[in-house]
């Protein structure tokens, strides 16, 4: 059995300098090719958890490992590079640089990740393939991102997360800006492509109804303890 794509153990983190907010995660792991839904209300520490996983903040204690790599062993610039190479991120909305074309936006992570760039033989071709696989109209690559509908923007964000086949996709409520009808279509397409890329998915949401799409559903309160002291 290979090491899990993501594993957290004994992690403690407190935001520096501000109203005391700390999070503790005893154990959380995502296996290769596994899709996990992390359910939690807003304020349950989801954002902090995602920041820890992506290495933009560093745990005070414990180990956050992505693809077997302990992030605390890396310098901050190496963590940035590591994130670019191995993690695809999808936000709730506003995923794209509005002034760039769709192709610019999709190719953006490759600029910071040489190894990932080498895995893509033909960037324009791969971007076009992902777009059409995600049900985006042909010729969208040269459009300015600002001209796209929210639904289109979210699909482009999926294409950007998937290009170069990173091992872990992290998604933060990617469907919350979509209406119920397009949510289903979006998730179907996203899951198809994530499976095709053999990537793992960790998605956070407050909506338990999404659970049916995932291999596993984890409740935030079961894995993490959040402490908030008013000062």
């Amino acid at each position: 059995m290979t090491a899990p794509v993501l594993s957290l153990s004994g992690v403690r983190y407190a935001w520096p300098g501000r109203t005391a907010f700390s999070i503790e995660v005893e154990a959380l792991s995502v296996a290769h090719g596994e899709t996990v839904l992390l359910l939690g209300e807003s304020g349950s520490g989801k954002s902090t958890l995602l920041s820890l996983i992506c290495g933009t903040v560093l745990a005070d204690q414990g180990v956050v490992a992505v693809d077997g790599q302990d992030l605390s062993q890396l310098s901050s610039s190496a963590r940035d590079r590591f994130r670019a190479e191995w993690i695809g991120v999808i936000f709730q909305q506003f995923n794209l640089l509005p002034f760039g074309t769709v192709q610019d936006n999709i190719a953006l992570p490759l600029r910071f990740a040489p190894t990932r760039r080498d895995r893509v033989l033909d960037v324009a071709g791969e971007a076009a393939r992902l777009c059409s696989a995600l049900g985006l109209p042909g010729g969208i690559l040269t459009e300015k991102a600002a001209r796209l509908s929210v639904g289109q923007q979210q699909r482009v964000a999926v294409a950007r997360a998937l290009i170069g086949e990173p091992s872990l996709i992290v998604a933060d409520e990617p469907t919350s800006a979509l209406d119920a009808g397009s949510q289903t279509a979006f998730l179907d397409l996203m899951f198809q492509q994530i499976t095709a890329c053999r990537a793992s998915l960790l998605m956070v949401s407050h909506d338990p109804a999404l659970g049916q799409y995932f291999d596993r559903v984890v409740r935030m309160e079961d894995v993490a303890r959040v402490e908030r002291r008013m000062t």
Partner: protein
Amino acid sequence: MIARLAIASLFARALTVGMTILAIALSVALYLGVEKIRTGAKASFADTISGTDLIVGARSGSVQLLLYSVFRIGNATNNVTWESYQDIAARPEVEWIVPISLGDSHRQFRVMGTTPAFFEHYRYRRGQNLLVEDGALIADLFDAVIGADVAETLGYAVGDPIVVAHGIASFTEHDDLPFRVAGVLEKTGTPVDRTVIVSIEAIEAIHVDWRRGARIPGQSTPEAVLRDMDLTPQAITAALVGVQSPLQTFALQRAINEYREEPLLAILPGVALQELWGIVGIAETALVAISAMVVLTALIGMMATLFSSLNERRREMAILRAVGAGPGTILGLLVTEAMLMAASGAVLGMAIVYAVLGVARAQIDSAFGLWLPIDPPTLQELWVVLAVLGAGGIVSLLPAIRAYRMSVADGMMVRS
């Protein structure tokens, strides 16, 4: 691709970015324009007199002598007697000598008495001769030759009468003895354009009936009598001297300065000009400093724009962080943007200067007698552009560092 995104991002904020670039461009244009006018004015001043080795006048200051004899600014405190003039003229070093007699005026223009040799020896703009545009040089005692500005301002043509006033800005006129415009000179861009030139004898003639600056009551010598009189002047204001060989200039200067009969002063026009620059230098420096301040103000304006854009661009920075850009990349992006703006501003500013020069050069020349050459950018101007670029980069560091801090604190999550 980062540079391309920076440019795309600038285009997306075209209005604010355009305004910032325009402010920088105008400030750079102002700075370069001041520089152009400064060097142009210097060159123009230096071009006013050439070919004259020494200027001789009564002892005063060299700058003062230069100003009143060549630029018609200020007045002589004393005169040079005709005897002294002749003594100098008789020296072996002297190749030619032209007397100048100032002190009268016509309207706002100075009247200068001199000899025909003036038209032969006076040179401007690297050795150009005075040329008559219309009419002829002085032939009769009461002939006057006027400069181009005099003709244009007062609407005079050849044959018109001119009444010379005694002194400058005075209401007493030599109205009994009018002059006739014999010729109009071509435009030179020198004070000659604003001068009425008459013969030195004529200056003597109109003062025959005057003593100590006032008309002798009841005395009026008829013109016919004047024409028969000996009108050799008693004194002149100054003299322009050309020497046989440049090597003798200093010897002659010393000889004149040590002349025993009368305190005289001989100056080298170039040296006196340098002294003048020394005096004007303070104002010049102030002007340059002010326009440099304007450039700085524009750059600080850019800094303010960058600062205010940071908040609305938090999302953009979070996206870049999410795809793996380090905070350093974000700092670099802001500095790159600022330097692109500064560079566009500087280049646009330079273009504005050239455009204005191209359009307004003729008007500037005719209005101020200032001929500004259109040359390719000098090394100094390129340095200015580089300095603006560098200063733009430095100024942008503050907002860039703030962006760096924000992106470290925010990571990929934008907290508001």
